[in-house]
């Protein structure tokens, strides 16, 4: 049974999902930190 392509498909899918989710988290942090900074600036003004 030649399962090598299925093996790689499973491993690639796993890391694509984790990578996508981590990217989503990083973008969330970036956006919220920016928003927090803007609110702080508005408060000072």
């Amino acid at each position, binding site marked *: *049974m030649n399962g090598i392509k299925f093996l790689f498909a499973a491993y690639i899918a796993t890391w694509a999902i984790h990578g996508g989710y981590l990217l989503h988290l990083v973008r969330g942090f970036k956006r*919220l930190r920016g928003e927090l900074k803007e609110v702080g600036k508005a408060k000072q003004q």
Partner: protein
Amino acid sequence: MKRAFSILSFVTAVLLVYGLYQALIAAPTERTMGDVQRIFYYHVPSAWTAFCLFFTNLFASIAYLIWKNAKADALAVASAEVGIVFCTIVLITGPIWARPVWGIWWTWDIRLTTTLVLWLIYVAYLMLRRFSDTAQTPVLAAVLAIFGALDVPLVYFSIWFFRTQHPQPVMGKGGSLAPAMLHAFLINLLAFTCFGIMVCWSRYRLEMLRREVEAAHAMESLVGAETSAKASLPLSRSVR
């Protein structure tokens, strides 16, 4: 806290790389299934991590219902979301393994069906959190989480109590693994557990940050409303 997170991230990265090496190169090839059996080194640790996260969600939800603690609620959201990510991997890697071994992608077997139901329950949980915006939402979500967690033991024990196509457990109950395979499996189990904790921790921090931003916006609009009310006061007096 930042230092602990950095150490955890480093340890996780090392374990994941070592686990990948063990799974793809060091572990021996299984005699009947061949290389496709190596999917097991990612599939089972992902399922284990998803279960741990769903249990974290259960305990955090119970803690929220008892003490109404906002941190417990944030942990419940974080663990449910990260748990879904790991459960999605289980539901994808399982059929990829099944296709060459069983000859089919999917069958309505008890283990597979209960896992899909588990995934759907937690997707419903996140939908509720996202689209319902009342003060009662965290309470409703916590109750749903408690019922959702009941499906976790059902998924785990289904292969013991029902006749199923899914492979039997490889550890305990008469199952056994070759020592080299067991080593690769345990390393990946540890690596995925650390990775799950790390991602859940990040998601928890993001959730707390989101709440902080929401509170800041609320405060800003409150101050804005107060200022405009003060500004309009002399005008309304002059109108009179």
